[in-house]
């Protein structure tokens, strides 16, 4: 089973987690000043990379908290997990300490 390291609870089985979409997408401060295209982009346009992807996960059957993860979308390898609200670790897949498989 895939093991995901929750920043609060440590390494835990995948079954306890839910995926929460791409991370670090900030809601526009004043949506009323946006064009329809800009608002549509905020709502729907995602990076969808082949490789490392910063994304949100929730430890729903554990501490219940959201956190962020860097996951390789090709291999499903979790390169890092980090608390919500903290910046994306500045690294590539090879340079990150293994935090889960």
């Amino acid at each position, binding site marked *: 089973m895939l093991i995901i390291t929750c920043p609060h609870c*440590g390494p*835990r089985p995948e*079954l306890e987690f839910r995926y929460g979409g791409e991370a670090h997408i900030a809601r526009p401060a004043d949506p009323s000043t946006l064009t329809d295209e800009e608002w549509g982009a905020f709502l729907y346009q995602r990076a969808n990379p082949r490789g490392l992807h910063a994304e949100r996960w929730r430890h729903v*059957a554990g*501490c*219940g908290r959201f956190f962020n993860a860097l996951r390789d979308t090709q291999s499903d390898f979790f390169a890092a997990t980090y608390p919500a609200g903290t910046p994306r670790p500045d690294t590539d897949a090879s340079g990150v300490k293994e935090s889960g498989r």
Partner: protein
Amino acid sequence: MADLSASRASAVASHVAAAPKVAVADLGALPPRTRFVFRGREAAITAAGPAFGVALPREACRFAEAGDRRVLWLGPDEWLLTAPEGAGAAIVADLAAALAGLPHSLVDVSHRSLGIAVSGAMAARVINNGCPLDLGLEAFPVGMATRTVFGKAEIVLVRTAEMRFEIDVWRSFADYVWRFLEEARREFA
């Protein structure tokens, strides 16, 4: 307001009566408890401990107890407070007094779940039939408490002794969890 003083019928009473004796994997229902979910920030967390009678554990996935009261860490700002049935009104009053002016939430969830105890040499193996956690003593030591999954149900799993676990499960899932445990321990009967 709903009458919460009505007596509660255990959702697993009929199973308890019919349960076979399995010494290495004993199964039992725990008496009704008063339960609260407490959430708050630093100042409220610190003040809640003395008011309840047990300091809220700050280490992830641990529980603390004093006398007949227990506090389980469920999340970084979330705890489950349990006490014998009937203690609810006093707990509400004590915490309201100690936490006056401090933002927090205290929700009575006494009737939401019930407790099941699994004990004996094969207790961990029986639970592992439905729970994917590593229940070895190093990964899941005595004193650990955490929400997790058991089959299709969400549970709170507590290790009170090397060979004794307590499961807190929502009432509507209790029948399912009990039958699952009963099935799992049949191989040791």
